């Protein structure tokens, strides 16, 4: 059999004749129009990428502070405790994180990580930079709308950050902002949160319209639907989810804003007592209404977090196994099915509200069904590895790391989808471990893969390989030490959102009903804290690598990974308008190792004037 395998000649990359700046020969725009008010999708992609990476770091630091408080409740935070006391005042008096501040950090950690970190990075940053390149478009459909989208996002981020410094502090009702809690906590932070969310939703709405229109309208000649790289499909479905799932949350946000500012009672029940006194409200509202509207977004949001990440992993895997992705059509149909089904599973977050057997059964069924296409997608990725001559590099390591990590996250979600087990596991650390496995070592690993993978296209240089691997292996180890113990803590009954790290709860003992948490479960808090600190330290090589490589990384040409997709057929970095000549697409996205071809990759298309001929069919 071995003799059948075609040996491809060693690839020699054409060296760039110039330093890459030669393409943008026309006038240099000034600083403001180039970096702040740019309408170029690549610049906007980088703006999104940089801002969202900063927010990821910020959200991570909030989490470190919370982990300190959980492991050492009431002990002043070392090193930055005095700073906290200085900037946040009373809630951080003496450098100690008060329960109110802990709640703020919790709510804002979730909000920042999801809405300001992962979604903008996965969807807006990678989508903006890569999608128009991949489909052979000169830019997005509506470049100025694109710019407005980033500005709304940035403004939303500013509102969120500013809310830390107002009297009473930032929102404290969790990232889910359940009413009536969100309305009765005496701080304006919630109003800031809601206004920030409305801005972020506006941003994602503008982005989603732009992405869908771009993918439908601006595909280059010959780029048929079934020739789209799967990353584009993933972004396409994500955009539809954002377009249709976010507006109900916007509606809910408006209603809650009315509750907070105009003292309406949309989400406040009759007879609500606050602080032992009947609230001065008309009542008649429904707290469950908020939960329904929130989770109608909240669950599709999970797929907004995961689908673009899966798209990146598919691209990296196809490129580094040097063979076509396994089951391209299955992947496409699966992602469409996931997108559709993600709209009818939301109430599995609400089993504990006593929704009744029939409704619970419906949502259990849809929840189990949606795991099927997800498993198909993951299986296609795994099968793609089979028999490939796998090239190991940093992006591929992160993509490979994604597979088992997302697998753990996904499979541990099954018990949560069934009402009977969910009643026990709801609101425990088990659920924290579950969705963090999906998002942190899952999605964020895929995003790291994307950063390492497309970095050479953006800068013309590769990131340092050695430090990339250090970054990967340390992150992989510490991510697991952080999140794996939480499964155990959760199963033992440790609840989330307790500012004293469950110390009081663990002391409570009701014979036959509640047993104290075992000491070793509590000790895991210390393990997690230091693993999280190490995880933070493990990101330092990445941060330095990211900036250092701009000027000092290994210089590469236009297509260093020898990839087939159109994003690698442009000059590096791509000039304004992307392609120097119009592209004509002649084949599918993953034509790797085509028998009889000159190289082990056959680009999807090329300039219209000089069409490359089809590789002869071998069998």
């Amino acid at each position, binding site marked *: 059999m071995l003799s059948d395998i075609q040996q491809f000649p060693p690839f020699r990359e054409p060296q760039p004749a110039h330093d890459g700046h030669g393409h943008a020969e026309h006038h240099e725009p000034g600083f403001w129009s180039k970096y702040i008010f740019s309408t170029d999708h690549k610049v906007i992609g980088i703006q999104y990428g940089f801002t969202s990476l900063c927010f990821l770091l910020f959200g991570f630091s909030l989490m470190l502070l919370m982990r300190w408080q959980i492991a050492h409740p009431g002990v002043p935070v070392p090193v930055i405790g005095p700073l906290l006391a200085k900037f946040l005042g009373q809630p951080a008096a003496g450098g100690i994180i008060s329960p109110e501040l802990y709640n703020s950090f919790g709510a804002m950690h979730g909000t920042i990580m999801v809405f300001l970190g992962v979604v903008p990075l996965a969807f807006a940053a990678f989508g903006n930079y890569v999608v128009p390149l991949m489909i052979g*478009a*000169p*830019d997005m*459909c*509506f*470049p100025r*709308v694109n710019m407005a989208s980033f500005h709304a996002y940035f403004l939303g981020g500013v509102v969120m950050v500013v809310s830390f410094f107002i009297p009473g502090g930032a929102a404290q009702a969790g990232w889910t902002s359940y009413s009536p809690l969100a309305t009765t906590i005496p701080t304006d932070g919630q109003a800031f949160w809601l206004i920030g969310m409305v801005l972020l939703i506006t941003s994602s*709405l503008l982005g*989603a*319209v*732009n992405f*869908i*229109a771009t993918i*439908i*309208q*601006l595909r280059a000649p010959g780029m048929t639907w079934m020739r789209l790289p799967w990353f584009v499909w993933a972004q396409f479905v994500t955009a539809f989810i954002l*377009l*249709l*799932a*976010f*507006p*109900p*949350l*916007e*509606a*809910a946000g*408006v*209603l809650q804003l*009315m509750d907070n500012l*105009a*003292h*309406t*009672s*949309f989400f406040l029940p*009759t007879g609500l007592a606050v602080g032992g006194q009947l609230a001065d*409200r*008309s009542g*008649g*509202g*429904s707290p469950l*209404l908020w939960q*329904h*509207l929130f989770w*109608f977004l909240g669950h599709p949001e999970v797929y907004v977090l995961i689908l673009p990440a899966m798209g990146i992993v598919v691209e990296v895997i196809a490129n580094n196994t040097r063979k076509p992705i396994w089951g391209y059509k299955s992947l496409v149909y699966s992602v469409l099915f996931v997108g559709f089904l993600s709209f009818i599973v939301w109430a599995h977050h609400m089993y504990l509200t006593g929704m009744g057997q029939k409704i619970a059964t419906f949502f259990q069924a849809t929840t189990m069904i949606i795991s099927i296409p997800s498993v198909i997608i993951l299986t296609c990725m795994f099968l793609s590895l089979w028999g490939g001559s796998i090239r190991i590099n940093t992006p591929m390591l992160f993509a490979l790391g994604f597979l088992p990590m997302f697998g753990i996250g996904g499979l541990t979600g099954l018990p949560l989808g069934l009402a009977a087990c969910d009643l026990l596991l709801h609101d425990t650390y088990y659920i924290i471990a579950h969705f963090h496995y999906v998002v942190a070592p899952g999605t964020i690993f895929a995003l790291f893969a994307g950063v390492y993978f497309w970095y050479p296209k953006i800068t013309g240089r590769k990131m340092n390989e050695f430090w990339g691997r250090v970054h990967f292996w340390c992150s992989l180890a510490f991510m697991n030490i952080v999140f794996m113990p939480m499964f155990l803590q959760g199963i033992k009954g440790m609840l989330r959102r307790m500012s004293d790290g469950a110390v009081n709860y663990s002391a409570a003992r009701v014979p036959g009903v509640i047993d104290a948490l075992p000491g070793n479960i509590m000790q895991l808090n210390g393990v997690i804290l230091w693993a999280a600190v190490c995880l933070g330290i493990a990101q330092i090589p990445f941060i330095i690598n990211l900036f250092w490589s701009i000027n000092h990384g290994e210089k590469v040409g236009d297509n260093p990974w020898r990839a087939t997709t159109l994003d690698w057929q442009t000059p590096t970095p791509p000039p*304004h*308008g992307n392609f120097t000549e119009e592209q004509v697409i002649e084949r599918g996205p993953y034509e790797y190792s085509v028998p009889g071809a000159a190289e082990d990759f056959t680009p999807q298309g090329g300039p219209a004037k000089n069409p490359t001929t089809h590789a002869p069919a071998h069998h």
Partner: protein
Amino acid sequence: MDIPYTVESRPDTGLYNAKLGIWLFLASEVMLFGGLFSAYVLLRVGAAPGMWPHGWLNVTLGTINTLLLALSAITTLLAWAACKVRDFTKFRIFHACTILLALSFLTIKSFEYHDKLIHYEIVLNNGTFADGHLVEKSADFDLAKKTGTITLHGRIVDDEKELMDLRTPEARAAKLGEVTVAAADIVKMGNYGPRHNTFTAIYFTMTGLHALHILGGTIVIFYMWAFGGAMWKTDPERFTNRIEVSGLFWHFVDLVWIFLFPVLYLT
């Protein structure tokens, strides 16, 4: 760099970019108002028996507003048709009508809001309810609430439920007159603003959001009406597209009102 299909249609989709864009945007708007209408349904079915208001809104004014918006939909369409046949003067006339109709709508809407904001319900310490429109909002209104007297044009009822359904024969027959209440007798008083109950809350929120859409649409249409001449001269096709796209938005806003009117005024 030119982005393809900004003016002419892409052959396989039959759409130019902005037309697809506005349809997508409207899809999200459907979800936005869909969320609000779901909230309306849930609040209404969840209301305590007999406590969901009926007949609180002025059906005559609502009908006039409905007709105004229906007319504006026609003028919007005619304005676009005028652009299609390259008649800028007619375009100006028709869209001037659209703008005037929209402003009339907003004026009537603000009268309705004002009517609700000067309508007070006062809980008296003898367990009855004084309900009616403020006869005069004096400068020392806040003082009057504490020490003086409040005069309403309305009536006093024994049970709050009597105020809920104003379509019943009893409610229609009720005599309205001047009711003067001493501040000392007031347990609680409030106007029919958003916080009064969940009906006024959802009424103000939904119609307010709708009015904001009307305002936004009017501004866009006015901008093209007043400053569109330059583009009309250089690129009439593109200008016509803009009128079409803004017209699609306008039709959607009209359609939302077609749902709001029966849901809030007639049931």
